[in-house]
């Protein structure tokens, strides 16, 4: 991958970097020169990776350990970033949870928990970070939704509802924040090759793979590269959009 410093000097906060797509987003951001606050839940779990990533890319990848639904801690994380760099240029709301439950088998407690993580916590971060971005009258917020948030999927009623909400949040927030030159966009990944999809995907996997025009699963890098575009100045006149990263999926 060609590196061109598209995020050079930008202060970025990425949630859910413990693995999978979030990890790749943080790595690619660092490769592009971003200073990355990498969010993860488990204390100490990404220290070694963050150090290596910082050295390799001659930038700073700073681990920040927090549960995005612990709103007091989230506030402290934002305060830490302000105290260290005075600004936040890019927020990627990537952390989330997924479940696979068919209608009739949906545990309401799971549904409520998923709404808290995938929706309420995202709104909270947008509210906090947009106020920081408003100081410099610029910023980019990227919300990771899902193709199932647009199209729905069997066994993913609850998950698709939360990701549909992320898309609605993106569009409304974009309208409210546009006068402050803060952009809000969403990336809707299709089937991405992560541990999560291998552990959770149902028996219709082959059928679903056949529904991808490009004939392969997406890679986390595919999502990360879309994030770079939306986080960089290349997309400075783009807001309120949902970018499908799905290999021309017809699901």
């Amino acid at each position: 991958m060609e590196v061109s410093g598209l995020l050079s000097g930008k202060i970025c906060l990425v949630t859910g970097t413990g693995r999978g797509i979030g990890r790749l987003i943080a790595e690619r951001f660092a490769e592009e020169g971003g200073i990355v606050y990498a969010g993860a839940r488990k204390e100490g779990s990404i220290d070694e990776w963050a150090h290596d990533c910082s050295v390799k890319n001659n930038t700073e990848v700073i681990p920040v350990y927090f549960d995005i639904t612990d709103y007091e801690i989230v506030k402290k994380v934002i305060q830490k970033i302000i105290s260290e760099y005075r600004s936040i240029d890019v927020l990627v709301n990537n952390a989330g949870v997924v479940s696979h439950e068919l209608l009739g088998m949906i545990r309401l407690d799971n549904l409520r928990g998923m709404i808290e993580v995938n929706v309420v916590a995202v709104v909270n971060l947008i509210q906090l970070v947009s106020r920081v971005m408003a100081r410099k009258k610029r910023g980019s917020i990227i919300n990771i939704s899902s193709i199932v948030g647009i199209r729905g999927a069997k066994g993913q009623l609850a998950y698709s509802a939360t990701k549909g909400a992320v898309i609605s949040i993106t569009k409304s927030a974009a309208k409210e924040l546009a006068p402050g030159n803060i952009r809000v966009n969403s990336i809707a990944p299709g089937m991405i090759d992560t541990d999560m999809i291998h552990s959770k995907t149902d028996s219709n996997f082959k059928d679903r793979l056949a529904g991808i025009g490009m004939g392969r699963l997406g890679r986390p890098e595919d999502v990360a590269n879309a994030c770079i575009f939306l986080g960089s100045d290349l997309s400075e006149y783009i807001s309120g959009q949902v970018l499908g990263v799905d290999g021309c999926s017809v699901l």
Partner: protein
Amino acid sequence: MSNQDKYNDVFARTFLINIDELNNLSYHSVTVWDSIGHMLLISAMEEEFDIMIDSEDIFEFSSYKKGKEILKKYSIEI
């Protein structure tokens, strides 16, 4: 600059109004203090006084006078 001056200055530069107009200022009393203006005001207050204001206090921050009471909670005496 005193806290009072800083407080006034945040209002004046956020809403582009004169300091002598501040005393009776409240949310929606001028067109510029709408929801977006409110976010910009809170953001500017946070930057000026190096604080982060809680959601409940953001809702309560409904006027120039009320704002002074709220900032007291953050040890900012106006």
